[in-house]
């Protein structure tokens, strides 16, 4: 019985090692292989089955949007620094800080609108069904998840947040 137990346990350990080894090796090889050929837009091509012509159009839109997006990010970062400076170490929210916060909110809203416009433009460069799927996916990834986080926070604290 003891000998049989040792044999069965040894076989199980060996089997687990063989399985784990081949799993990890294949996973590593696949990640290395796919990461080599991936660029910033490879996800779009693979996920929405886009042709070269559609990808060329989307790449053009993407290249046009990137500088605008970077500019907005720089403005938001500067305004954020302004808010921090206005808040300072004081215990009151001054009028200056309130204005800076309102400006920051406006900038973020502008940035978000610009982003949504870009999503719409990209979706129009795709076949209609894929375009709808792209919009839904981008909304889920950029807006819905953020809203869910806000909702969960408002649920936890019992406060209502309206944006």
């Amino acid at each position, binding site marked *: 019985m003891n000998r049989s137990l040792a044999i069965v346990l040894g076989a199980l350990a060996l089997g687990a090692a063989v399985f784990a080894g081949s799993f990890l090796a294949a996973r590593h090889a*696949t990640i290395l292989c796919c990461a080599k050929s991936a660029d910033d837009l490879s996800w779009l091509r693979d996920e929405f089955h886009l042709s070269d012509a559609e990808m060329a159009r989307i790449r053009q839109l993407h290249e046009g949007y990137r500088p605008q997006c970077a500019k907005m990010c720089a403005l938001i970062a500067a305004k954020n620094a302004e808010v921090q400076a206005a808040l300072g170490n004081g215990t009151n929210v001054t009028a200056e800080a309130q204005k800076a916060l309102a400006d920051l909110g406006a900038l973020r809203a502008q*940035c978000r609108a610009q982003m949504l416009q870009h999503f719409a433009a990209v979706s129009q460069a795709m076949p209609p069904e894929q375009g709808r799927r792209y919009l839904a996916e981008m909304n889920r990834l950029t807006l819905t998840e953020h809203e869910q986080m806000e909702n969960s926070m408002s649920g936890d604290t019992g406060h209502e947040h309206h944006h």
Partner: protein
Amino acid sequence: MNPDDIKLSKLLRQSRLSPPLPPRFRENVWRRIEDAEAPAKPESWFDVLAALVLRPRFAYATAAALVLAGAWLGMRDGMQTTRLDAQARYVALVAPNALH
């Protein structure tokens, strides 16, 4: 056969000394025959499994199946990870963190 050969063979057979048999030789032989003819003790399922595991054909087939299953699942997992990474990279480019 030559009659001389027969004679020679007989002489050779007589000259060969047979060693003395060990004590209770006959009894031991019969006991071993009886043991061999007796039905084998029933083995537990664990012993059966151990015996199966030690069979080369079973061991090779199991190892091959495990390698194939591991490689297939690893490839699937790798593709999924790559897909999520690529998605995250794209989203980070078009939806800056400054918005959150």
